[in-house]
């Protein structure tokens, strides 16, 4: 590896800014966050970035490295240096900039507030009994470290800025973890279909590809949720049975097949 590399880091605020180049020393195993820390300590202590654990467990240091949404603490510099020994580091694009690499992600916290918590039937026997096979999928979703990189890459939020219509992949995963919890009794499909805006997702899988926790966001969360929504709202046979029997919209199981059309539910 090169002894010294060059980092081009965005410096600025919502009012404007530009890349600034810094030269840093490398060492074995160095990650991009190490390079940022070196700049702060030795060249410019005003360079703003978020970080906490430096172990890919807290999801704070999200940024765009050479244009790719990544955790800085998990990105080895040798993997991102171009032939000139240069790396660019920009803030995530989908959320408003505060300063340098720090963005305002508060929209995500407001969405989280809209999702009702686990709701268990009061007469469920205690302590809970659940089989491992029945919670494997839920545990996959609960690995999420809320780095919001999936939100950053989602074109509905990133390119179309439809934060008014779609909760984004992070919260599809969160709702999936509740919807597929063996003891949850709440019907979450109406929320998914309406304010959650699940129909906006057209399954490009960009989020799934970059999830640092390797959660199968699209395959295991969004697609099955879409199936459940479609089952409830668009299956003509079930709608007929429902009308005849006067049954409420059920909670599970997921119906077969993929949804045929993916038009916006609005």
């Amino acid at each position: 590896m090169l002894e010294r590399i060059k980092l081009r880091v965005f410096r600025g605020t919502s009012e404007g800014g530009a890349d600034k180049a810094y030269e840093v020393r490398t060492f074995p195993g160095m990650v991009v966050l190490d390079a940022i820390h070196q700049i702060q300590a030795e060249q410019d202590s005003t360079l703003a970035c978020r970080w906490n654990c430096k172990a890919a467990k807290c999801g704070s240091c999200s940024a765009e490295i050479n244009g790719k949404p990544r955790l800085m603490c998990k990105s080895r510099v040798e993997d991102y240096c171009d032939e000139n020994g240069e790396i660019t580091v920009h803030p995530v694009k989908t959320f408003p900039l505060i300063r340098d690499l720090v963005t305002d992600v508060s929209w995500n916290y407001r969405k989280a507030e809209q999702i009702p918590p686990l709701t268990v039937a009061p007469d469920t026997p205690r302590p809970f009994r659940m089989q491992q096979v029945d919670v494997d999928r839920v545990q996959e979703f609960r690995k999420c470290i809320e780095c919001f990189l999936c939100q950053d890459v989602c074109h509905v939020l990133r390119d179309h800025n439809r934060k008014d219509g779609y909760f984004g992949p992070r919260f599809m995963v969160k709702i999936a973890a509740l919807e597929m919890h063996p003891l949850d009794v709440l019907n979450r499909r109406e929320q998914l279909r309406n304010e959650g805006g699940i129909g906006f997702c057209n399954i490009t899988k960009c989020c799934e590809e970059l999830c640092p926790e390797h959660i199968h966001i699209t395959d295991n969360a969004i697609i099955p949720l879409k199936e459940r929504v479609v089952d409830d709202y668009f299956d003509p046979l079930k709608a007929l049975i429902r009308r005849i029997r006067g049954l409420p919209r059920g909670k599970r199981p997921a119906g077969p097949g993929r949804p045929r059309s993916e038009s916006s539910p609005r």
Partner: protein
Amino acid sequence: MMEQCETFEHDVLVIGAGGAGLRAAIAVRDAGLSCGVVCKSLLGKAHTVMAEGGAAAALGNMGEPDDWSVHFRDTMIGGQFLNNPRTVEIFAKEAPLRVLELEEYGAVFDRTPEGLIAERPFGGHTYRRLNHVGDRTGLELIRTLQDKAVSLHPSFHMEVTVTRLLLDSGRVVGAFGYRRDTGTFVAFRARAVVLATGGWGRMYKYTSNSWESTGDGAMLAWDAGAELMDMEMVQFHPTGMVWPPGVRGLLVTEGVRGEGGILRNSRGERFMFNPEYMPEAYKGKFAESEEEAARWLEDKANNRRPPELLPRDVVARAIYKEVLAGRGTEHGGVYLDVTHRGADYIRRKLPSMYEQFHALGDIDITRQPMEVYPTIHYTMGGIWVDPETCATSVPGLFAAGECAAGLHGANRLGGNSLTDILVFGKRAGEGSAAHAARAEFARLDESQMEAEAAVLLDPFQNPGKENPYTITMELQEAMQEGAMIARTQEGLQQCLDRVLELQKRSRNIRVDGGRAYNPGWHTARDIKFMLKTSEIIVRCALERKESRGAQWRLDYPDKNPEWGAKNIIAKADGDAVRLTTRPVPEMGPELRALFEEVK
């Protein structure tokens, strides 16, 4: 006259939003009071997220005769009887309730074949007792508590750093600090304040702690006149990563050893079987051959556990001695090998370890051993609190979790911190709520806020040239060299001199830039807390002239029963540190009987 500053009013203000702070906030809201929660970072990013192995609570789900009394005994023995027995009793009795409650809030633990919460073995615990989710239990805890707290609508103040508690006639009535994003000041008026700010592992060079662990809570309490206890007790986790340099110190969960991980030196010897490393209190309770240890993996009822599962202080010292004796690895550690458990099992039970070594260390732990060495991990000492209510020695001020003292004594058992934050987070919330119901709001004293504002703004005008990052690094080196795992009078004294010198230099810190999200400026204030905390740690370590738990004095290598009966209390006396001792609270006859039963 000071600049405008935002002011908020809450019945209870909770400072810190890790597990203890969030659990306290839930209790305050359950009591029907208004609650503000200050997070130094974004919500859900606190240090709790890094806990891996599990939460210790005697649920007895594994077919072993576990109950609170065994957990009580294990915790007292592990803490070398420096713990407050009443604190430990409350803890062991309430821990199972708090873990089961998490399931109601939405946590999804690993399951037993019967569908109950699965519990894994851990160092110093007689039975399988660590309720876990793979090796990411801390994430599960914080997210669960975060979701529950959010549903109860306290006011969250994210990315706010509190730097001073505000007093009225000796009572805590509020707090003062700044917003990271704008750098503007913010004040809180409260009837009671809970400190839940975590530990201070950032004082050391090789640490498993995040940047937030700068000792804010202990120092806020210190400046308010509260007593600190047993500050010399700083835990070194036996297994931190050693290579590559960028991740040196990063935690390797004890869960690896819980799942059968084997420690070997560079000669291939499984050195934990060396009888020299077996403490008197644990003799006869551990496997005496590698064959027995191997059988234990499959049959825990009829075999004793491997000696890799001795308490952390014991294993950390053994690794230190192996490396010192020249039996270390290429990068100065020892090997930790779990490959015999098979790739599928490892990836299921230790997924974050697999990912961490794969992504950051180029090691596949299903095929290669890890290199490990002790890393600073936890602070047993902290703010003195009453075990029932978590009240500190200052009226209106409460503390819970790692910043408080009393539960872990001289050495914490793995898994006890995650249940500590649940049990005492709740008690601190309830204690502060009960206090708040009786206490009135007080007017905030402008002069205290102005004084703190001046401290905060000084680095922008200071004519000095000191860089806050340089001082931080020098402090970390001083503490790493002088106040690490093996301590001596001489080393500690030199360390103290360096810390005091750095305190002087810190008065000349200068920072550039403006107040909006300026990390250099934030560090300039953090380092003041770190320097004072370090001074207190070193002075207490000099004072305790014995070896006990985490305090290992090469010049006083044995336990001293006189010291074993004393807690060291530190209190501010102007700028000076005043140390006194106080007898460790005695066990009542019922608790004492628990030890006689075993004999």
